[in-house]
């Protein structure tokens, strides 16, 4: 493992916010951490970049100058212009002069903001702000890029553009770790970590996670909720039988990634 967390725990007072999580961040790969509100995503990335102290385990990271980090909120200054934001971030990382001008121009072109350099950060749409924040974190060509919910609340079009930028960064050799609440975004990852209440409940490639689903999954087309572990999907129900024995009337179904995520959460709940 080049960088990442090994058996890492974080405590806030008596609350265990991160519970023995291991996660590898390798060059040229995208690691996506999926979890809902309060799952511990921000604590995980803050532990990875060195903003919170571990009470157990290890964090391996490159020197600060080689890390790019975008926090879940902001990541840019609303009362600075696009250009000023980039210059500020550049000066923090020692990217100045012609190097700054060239790299800024390249990134602005990439995120479609080259005609808006004099606009204030706060005047940009939510999607544009996120793109600018990511660009600011990429100015110094980091070897580890850490993004906390870069796409929450961002519409699917801007999201596709953001992911294109993130993929390009990984393709050029950077190790990327990004968190998300959108399960569908995990498809973009080479490796996924599912986080629930500070614990990693499943990890691997999206395909590994799907093929590791225990038991059997089925569809029940009825009005009433079938017994057992079932949830709605569209007008029908999905039912999961841990034993592998589906009840009568359930048609077997190949689990998709979203199903695998729900099942992992159900398995985890049973354990708790």
């Amino acid at each position: 493992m080049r960088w990442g967390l090994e058996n890492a725990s974080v405590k806030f007072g008596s609350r265990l916010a991160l519970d023995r999580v291991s996660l590898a961040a390798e060059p040229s790969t995208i690691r996506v951490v999926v979890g809902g509100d309060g799952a511990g995503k921000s604590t995980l990335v803050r532990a990875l970049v060195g903003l919170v102290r571990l009470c157990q385990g290890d964090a391996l990271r490159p020197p600060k100058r080689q890390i790019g980090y975008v926090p879940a909120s902001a990541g840019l200054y609303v009362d600075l212009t696009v250009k000023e934001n980039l210059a500020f971030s550049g000066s923090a990382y020692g990217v100045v002069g012609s190097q700054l001008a060239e790299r800024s121009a390249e990134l602005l072109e990439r995120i479609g903001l080259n005609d808006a350099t004099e606009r204030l950060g706060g005047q940009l749409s939510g999607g544009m702000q996120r793109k600018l924040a990511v660009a600011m974190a990429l100015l110094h060509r980091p070897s580890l890029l850490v993004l906390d919910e870069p796409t929450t609340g961002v519409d699917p079009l801007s999201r596709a553009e953001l992911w294109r930028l993130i993929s390009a960064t990984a393709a050029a050799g950077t190790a990327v770790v990004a968190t998300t609440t959108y399960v569908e975004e995990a498809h973009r990852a080479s490796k996924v970590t599912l986080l629930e209440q500070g614990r990693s409940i499943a990890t691997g490639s999206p395909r590994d996670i799907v093929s590791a689903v225990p038991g059997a999954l089925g569809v029940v087309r009825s009005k009433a909720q079938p017994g057992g572990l079932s949830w709605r999907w569209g007008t029908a129900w999905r039912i999961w039988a841990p034993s592998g024995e589906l009840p009568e009337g359930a048609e077997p179904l190949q689990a998709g990634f979203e199903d695998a995520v729900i099942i992992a959460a159900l398995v985890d709940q049973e354990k708790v």
Partner: protein
Amino acid sequence: MTVLAQARRLTIRFGALAAVDSVDLAVEGGEVVGLLGANGAGKTTLIRLLLGLLRPSGGEALLFGALPSMDTRRRVGYVSQTLGLYDDMTVEENWTFTSAAFGSGRPAMPASISASSDELVGTLPLGVQRRVAFAVAFSHGPELLVLDEPTSGVGPLSRARLWQDVRDSAEHGTGILVTTHNMEEAAQCDRLVVMVGGRVAADGTVAEVIASRTVVEVVCDDWRKAFAVLDGAGLVVQVQGEVLRVPGSTDQVAALLSGHDLGVRLAVVPANLEEAFVSIVSPPPRR
């Protein structure tokens, strides 16, 4: 089926900008209609027009066949993006206040939220706040539910539960209009309406919206190199693990990748809903 909410050539202008432009839309009892669009496409404005919170510049918005009024609004449940709860009141106070405002008597609080009844809403985790907002919106047995990005930031299991409530209401005859940026959620709607620049750009079932759109799937020895080539040519490449998906023709993709010795295998596959959405809402390329 009864039409609960209807827009007929509905238009609103803010100065020179038509934020909602000649929109036709109907939500019937028992159906879940997904309203999709990029930020700024006019989704929230359309909802506010339908609810009577904004006055149209043209066309008409009808709720239960009449112009929106206090009486028709009583029959609607609405969860806004900001949830619409009072942060400095407890869950129970929010519940009682809403019941009083809707004149729905004193319905019992559902078990899902009664555990937090004495807590200030502002101090609760987002997931719980959302459950409260849903319960409040459902409390007066609305015939039409309008949900504006109801599950943004919610984990997978909680989201499945919220959708369970949505479907249960639909089966009891409630019509539901829901906006979302989540394509997994959109795929669960009975019908989708896609807005671009204030207008309806596509509508129908998920299959009808995707229509015959396809993408080229690229499998090769080194996705990084292939990505750099295709991305450099200005194509909107999406990476799925180590597989690339690109809009365009196999000929075009093959031509770009030839000579790079990447062991390329191409296949034309149906677009997914997200790819279809991106293609519908994308401005035509500048060059």
